């Protein structure tokens, strides 16, 4: 009996000591870790819009985030969009609730600043203040709208979908007509040499420039990637004078409306990315039209 007590106490002490060390490491490193992640996402977004260190973003480039939530009120289900609005000189947020048929339901003030709204916990606390139980809400996704001055430049959609192994996390950039501006693979766990080739330019850049009509029916084709197209896609390996202006234009228009060439030995990963992008684009185009209509109809002073 004494042995068992001895063992239990020893185990408890060890667990508590280990937890204390881990907790300490977490508190010390958490802020730096979040900053790194945020910087990573920012760089990916700027890169998709074409701005790099050599070509910095202009000062009138602004980002506005819209967060989508699914609200359950008893039997009824609604979509709640946390939209950034102009409140006098500052930016705040409002929750626009729309039912599943696309009709406006109600509009609620949410007290949160745009900087705080990046953190999921802060959004939840702010929403709990306006959506009292029995209403329940779950986070769905976010959209970031990039504006150059007064015009919409692009929609940036972070998305996640199942890949060959686990999940593939992407950032998709669409132009105001829902054509693809660019694609960035943020996280994945695919096989190196096979599925991990989705990170390579010769696969990612195939999506650039596809029109919305093409993306709605985008498929994967199991054919070898033509050599000239591959050289055109791998922009990092371009040398001086490799392509003339007419060559670039002719290659671009020749392959604009073709389907995606699959990666050799990684058809499922290629299909996963293509299907994911097709779904994200179709759903987003449908939703954003409803949101724009409702916001205009209700004269909500949105900043996008």
């Amino acid at each position: 009996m004494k042995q068992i007590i001895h063992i239990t106490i020893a185990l408890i002490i060890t667990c508590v000591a280990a937890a204390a060390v881990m907790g300490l490491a977490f508190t010390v490193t958490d802020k730096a870790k979040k900053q790194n992640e945020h910087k990573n996402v920012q760089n990916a977004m700027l890169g998709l819009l074409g701005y790099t260190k050599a070509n910095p973003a202009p000062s009138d480039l602004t980002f506005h985030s819209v967060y989508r939530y699914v609200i359950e009120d008893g039997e009824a289900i609604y979509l709640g969009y946390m939209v950034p609005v102009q409140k006098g000189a500052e930016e705040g947020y409002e929750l626009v609730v729309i039912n599943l048929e696309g009709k406006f339901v109600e509009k609620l003030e949410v007290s949160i600043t745009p900087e705080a709204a990046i953190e999921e916990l802060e959004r939840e606390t702010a929403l709990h203040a306006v959506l009292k139980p029995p209403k329940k809400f779950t986070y769905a996704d976010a959209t970031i709208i990039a504006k150059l001055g007064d015009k919409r430049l692009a929609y940036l959609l972070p998305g996640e979908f199942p890949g060959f192994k686990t999940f593939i996390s992407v950032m998709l950039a669409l132009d105001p007509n829902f054509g693809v501006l660019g694609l960035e693979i943020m996280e994945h766990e695919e096989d190196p040499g096979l599925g991990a080739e989705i990170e390579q330019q010769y696969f990612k850049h195939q999506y650039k420039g596809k029109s919305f009509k093409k993306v709605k029916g985008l498929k994967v084709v199991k054919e070898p990637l033509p050599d000239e197209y591959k050289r055109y896609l791998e922009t990092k390996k371009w040398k001086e004078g490799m392509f003339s202006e007419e060559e670039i234009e002719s290659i671009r228009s020749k392959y604009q409306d073709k389907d995606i060439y699959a990666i050799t030995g990684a058809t499922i990963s290629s299909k996963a990315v293509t299907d994911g992008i097709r779904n994200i684009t179709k759903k987003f185009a449908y939703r954003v039209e409803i949101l724009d209509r409702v916001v205009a109809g209700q004269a909500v002073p949105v900043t996008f």
Partner: protein
Amino acid sequence: MAVTKKTNTQLFVDGILTENPIFRLALSMCPAVGISTTVMNGILLGIAVLFVQVFSSCTISLIKDHIHPRIRIPTYTLTIAMWVTVIDLVLAAYMPVAYKAMGIFVKLIVAFAIITMRLEMFASKNNLGPSFWDGIGMGLGFMFAMMTLGFVRELLGMGTLLGYDILGFKPLLYFVLPCAGFILVGLMMGMFNWIEVVYNRRKRVKEL
């Protein structure tokens, strides 16, 4: 168990050559087979394992007299989990580029047999100094083994080394798959055994 006292440098060299964890002790074959696809993966994982091994060995050798014999394994596992978490958090916060490259692998280190075995066989019976050197030897031996495997698999499977295109084409993509890793580990174990046989034979001849 051999009770002969080894010097610290001998422990260090043993860990890399005669008691190499993957090729001689046949421990931690999972990462050897699954993760040694490129040299960079091997180096990064080797460094992470080195840190975890050294810290865990030192921690256990410091508290070895207070561990109740019946809960040895949970104590080892908790120590290893603690250090793996600390290293994972530190990497994510202060070395984001390295973390992106090997983020998934670091969390798997908890399950590696080599660290638990080394704690059981060595750190719980020896003082801080020898444990430290043994930990470093084992960690470096693991890294050396992973780098060798990664070298062969990356060169023959993808035609690159450390990301740089050496061959310009992919000779045998088969080498990237775990099946080839298995076969390769077996072949390298055979080669190490053969080297030992030849070395011992030469030593015997010299002593005659």
